[in-house]
């Protein structure tokens, strides 16, 4: 790979650091969505640590892989991953959500390494499909990844893109669903049940990986692989746990909204094995 830092990284250790950054950032900013960040920490770690082709010194490098985080409320872990990858200084994470900071509470393109500003759900996948179409038409070999929440699959615009991408045979497009089973008002099953999610994508002619979204080997295998359905886009349905990695936050709706207080932060970092 032509990038600094995408090989030979311990992705599990990277995931631990990302979780610690997110806990500190949301604690300092009194910001919400910590649970949404923690559920996708392993996805981010494997992407940035082992899969993506990028060059931190050239964020606009034409041949880089693209990542769109459609669940723009998970901004803290996006910035954390970019800082750990060298796009922005680690110290800048301290400014998260502060007055005048470029690290807004929803993912913002002004930050080097961010491909698309998001925050309104259901926008990422169509844009990712447009990028994939651009690469296909240009005969370029870079890939486009789009990370979606489960709750945002309620938005119809996603399914427009799902339909479009298979018809145009965008096999350079990979959607990753962070399927943590909790959305704004309760469980996905209670609010607008997505089950059977993998079958929905199958029916749309997508290639489907259904994996444990915290299993790094499974993530690596799914994300590194060639399209498993020839000429078709790929989805990784990643079964995850909201708040993963901090026992008292796991699988709790509360941590969609709340940030850790001082004692909770210390306890969470201790559990991760990170000193505060």
């Amino acid at each position, binding site marked *: 790979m032509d990038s600094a830092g995408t090989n030979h990284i311990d992705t599990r250790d990277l995931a631990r650091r990302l979780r610690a950054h997110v806990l500190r950032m949301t604690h300092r900013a009194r910001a919400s969505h910590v649970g949404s960040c923690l559920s996708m920490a392993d996805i981010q770690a494997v992407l940035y640590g082992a899969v993506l082709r990028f060059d931190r010194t050239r964020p606009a490098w*034409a041949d880089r892989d693209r990542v769109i985080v459609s669940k723009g409320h998970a901004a803290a872990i996006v910035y954390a991953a970019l800082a750990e990858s060298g796009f922005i200084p680690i110290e800048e994470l301290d400014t998260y959500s502060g007055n005048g900071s470029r690290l807004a509470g929803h993912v913002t*393109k002004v930050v080097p390494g961010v*491909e*698309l*500003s*998001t*925050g*309104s759900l*259901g*926008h990422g*996948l*169509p*844009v*990712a*499909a*447009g*990028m*994939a*179409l*651009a*690469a296909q*038409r*240009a005969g370029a070999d870079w890939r*486009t990844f789009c990370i979606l929440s489960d709750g945002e699959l309620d938005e*119809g*615009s996603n399914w*427009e*893109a799902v*339909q*479009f991408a298979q*018809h*145009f045979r965008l096999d350079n497009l990979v959607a990753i669903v962070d399927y943590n089973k909790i959305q704004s008002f309760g469980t996905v099953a209670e609010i607008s049940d997505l089950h059977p999610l993998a079958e929905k994508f199958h029916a749309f002619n997508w290639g489907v990986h259904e994996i444990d979204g915290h299993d790094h080997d499974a993530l690596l295998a799914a994300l590194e692989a060639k399209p498993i359905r020839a000429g078709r886009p790929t989805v990784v349905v990643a079964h995850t746990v909201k708040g993963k990695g901090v026992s008292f936050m796991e699988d709790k709706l509360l941590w969609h909204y709340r940030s850790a207080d001082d004692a909770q932060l210390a306890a969470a970092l201790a559990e991760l094995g990170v000193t505060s």
Partner: protein
Amino acid sequence: MRTECIEALTEYARANPDVMLLTADLGYSVLEVFADNLPGQYANVGVCEQAMAGIAAGLALSGRRVVLYSIANFPTLRCLEQLRNDVCYHNLPVTVIAVGGGLAYGAQGYTHHGVEDLGIMAMLPNMAVTCPADPHEAISLLPQILERRQPAYLRLGRAGEPVLHAPDTAITLGEAIWLRRGADIALLATGPILGRALEAADALAEQGISTSVATFPTIRPLDVAAVREAGRSHRAVLTIEEHNTVGGFGSRVAETLLAEGLAPRFGKFGVTDALRGQIGNQSWMLDRLGEVKDHALALL
């Protein structure tokens, strides 16, 4: 107007391979000239305007200039947030073309009456908003908005709009053009309804009223100098648009006059809520709004 415009777009795109045309499955018998000649720069994405606007943003973020094509409200209101967030927030070179603007599809019913588009598009950041009156204005503006490499909206009529300009008339993005010069009242028009403004000017002249007429092919940026001249040099100013009179061209002119400290007698000719629910051909629908001449006389 739409046919001439797509032919001009095809020639522009032939010379500029970064230009792509997307349609949400509309434009039958109009877009074939582009699709057949430049298949690598064309995609019919299906009936999905929200995805189309997002796809356009993705293409634009990957170095393409993208033109979206659909009719009436579909490429504007249906995908408004995608235009706001994905296109305009990122200041991308995406041009939205809506055909059948205003009441061109009058008989098709209210769903097809595009009468809020200009005002709403003009509120979006970085967006240039154009509303040509005839094919000459349209094909003159098209390369200019593409060269600008920022979000743009081009509202077209449908077919058969008369040519109102001499072929050598220079049309510049952001500039109005005075077609008649008078001293009593200024008629400021945008779009094909300019024809009714010119007819009204003739009728007013017969009554001894000295009338100016200007066409505004661009609504944003608005030609402030032309508005200032209208306000300073005439007793009255009447705006004429095939659009809701609330928040449209007339409102932009009014706020500009106020900002310039000018207070001529002022009126807006355009669509009101009373038209909702009525159907008929474009001419019949416009007749429901009354005579431009009568609106002018009421101001004097």
